[in-house]
Structures are given as C-alpha cells and as structure tokens.
C-alpha cells in the first residue's frame, strides 16, 4: 500500500467529518456540486469532439512528429520532452484544446508514462493565459496592457519547464 492510495479515502472522510462538525447538509452539497461538474462536462464535450478529431488527424498524418522534431533542439535544453510541443502551443490559447491534446498524450503514451505525467502536470500548473488576459482587461476597460503579457508568458514557460522537472523529481524519468 502506498501513500497516494490513502489520499482519496482520507480526503473524503476528512470532508465528511468537517461537514458534520460544521453542521452543514453534506449530502445535498455533494450532489449539488456533482451537478455542477456535469454542467462543466456538458459544456466541454462539443469542443472535445471537434478537437480530438483534429488532434487525431494531426497525429496520424505525421504532422505532429514534424512539429515536435522542429522544436526538439530548444526543448531538450529546457529538459522538456518534445512530444508535448502541441500541448505547450495550444495551452495559452484554449482550455478545451489543451485538455484534448493532453488527453491524446495520456491515452497514446499511457497515463503513468513520463510523457503522460508531464502532460498532466503541465495542464494542472498553467492556465489559458490569453483568454484570461482578454477577459480581465476587456471587462476592466484596459487597452494598454503594458508588461502583463510578457510576465504571464514567463509564468507559462516556467510552468512547462518546471512540470518536466517536477515529474523527474517525484517519479524519475
């Protein structure tokens, strides 16, 4: 038995215990949240259909390999596996696109492979940068964004390199 197999039952029990102590209606909150999860999923399914189709075609045609090989020299210096190139390109632009590409990487390389893990960590440690910038500055009426874009992209790039590093650190390559 490993520590990580304890995470789920312990967390669930902890949430249940805290909920009881605070006298909240744990069960109805749970089902209400689950309903919310279903809404999120429903919204992302149409995008996944379109994007997984395109990503599948892109991989089968050999274009994906070509793109990865193109970026490989730079990425190897940063310690990032070149296979995740498409994920890094789409991550700042589209959340559902990144989800589709990462899913493709996890299923084709295996969720417990080095590349599968790096893809998962990258997805978890970065955000849809350009979308966020557009929403925030757009609604605040800002037209001169100054250094927000370069700083945000620095965070993304660091997140990508750090993801590969963290996976090697915790799991070995």
């Amino acid at each position, binding site marked *: 038995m490993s520590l*990580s197999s304890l995470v789920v039952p312990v967390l669930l029990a902890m949430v249940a215990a805290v909920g009881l102590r605070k006298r909240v209606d744990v069960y109805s909150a749970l089902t209400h949240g689950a309903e919310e999860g279903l809404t999120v999923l429903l919204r992302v399914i149409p995008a996944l259909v379109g994007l997984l*189709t395109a990503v599948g075609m892109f991989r089968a045609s050999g274009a994906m390999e070509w793109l990865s090989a193109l970026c490989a020299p730079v990425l190897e210096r940063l310690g990032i596996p070149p296979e995740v190139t498409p994920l890094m390109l789409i991550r700042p632009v589209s959340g559902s696109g990144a989800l589709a590409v990462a899913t493709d990487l996890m299923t084709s390389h295996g969720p417990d492979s080095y590349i599968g893990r790096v893809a998962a960590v990258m997805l978890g*440690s970065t955000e849809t940068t350009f979308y966020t910038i557009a929403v925030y500055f757009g609604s605040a009426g800002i037209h001169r964004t100054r250094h927000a874009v370069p700083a945000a992209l620095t965070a993304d790039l660091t997140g990508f390199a750090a993801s590969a590093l963290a996976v090697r650190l915790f799991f070995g390559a």
Partner: protein
Amino acid sequence: MAMTWVWCGMVLLSLVFGAATGRLEEVSAAALDGAQTAIQLSVSMAGVLCLWSGVMEVMNVCGLSAGLARAFRPLLRRLLPEAAKDDETLAAVSANVSANLLGLGNAATPLGIRAACRMARNCGGVASDELCLLVVLNTASIQLIPATIASVRSAAGCRTPFDILPAVWLASVLSVAAGLLMARLLAAAGRWRR
C-alpha cells in the same frame, strides 16, 4: 476566433501531410476515431469529475473558501499595497485567489473581474503595475486539487490519478513565482526608463 484558425490549420495540415506521407487512410480513420474517443472519454471521466466537484462544493459550504480568503489577506496586502487600501478590492482579490485554489473557476472569474474593475478606475485605460500583478496571478494556475486532470487520468486507465499532486503544486508555485517576479522586474525597468 483564434480556435477557428487552430482547428482549420490542424485539419488542413493533416490533409497535406497525410498526402505527402501517404497516410491518408490512417488520417481518415483517426478523424472518426477522435470523435468517438471524445464521447467515450467524457463518459468515463464524468464520474470522477462529478465526485470531486461535489467534494469541492462540500468544502465550500463548510467555509473553507472563506477561511482561505482570510488566510491570504496579509500576503495580498503586501503584494498589492495600493489596491489593498480599498477594503472591497482586497476582499474581492482574496476571494478570487481562494476560489482559484479550490478550482472553482466559475466563481473565481467574476470575483477577479470585480477586483480588476475597481483597480482600473481613474487610470485612463492603462494597466497599473498592480493590475498587471493581479492578471498574472490569474493567468498562472494555483489549484489544490485539479479534478478535471485527475478524471482524465483515471479515464485513461490510471489507478492512482492523484499521485501527480505534489508535482503539480511544485510546478504551479515555480510558475506563479516566475510570473510575479518578471512582472516586478518589468515594472521596475519601465520606471527606470522614464
């Protein structure tokens, strides 16, 4: 609109590359396969995703997000001293950060926007240093339990979908730190040039 370019570009490139490498048959199979995978995957990740959304909601009603917001106030006061002078802005920013931590994207964005609008008053459409910091904080991901990713991993056949958590936390912290540091450096460089 950006996604139109991405999608069309991928489909067109696939046709060109497929024709050049003589793999058009595989491309055709992959297209239909991809659409089918999307639905199979969505169905197999639905359970885990709903479960964790439920758990997050329980944590939320238990007051975890309010507690987190309180815990982050002193830190945010130091990061955004000008904005923190206004109580309502500080409240919105700290609620925004705690919603992000819990992965409540639907709650985090309106809170962040409210803070951004208050910070953008009387600035004539030019982002202040602190507004840039707030945006960088939101373009970097800080999530305690990435439920969507865990559900994709378990749908792909992983037995321990949460074993990547420490790696996600480490990468997130490094990414946020680099973004904030870069924003500070660029702000200082801008002042120095003037």
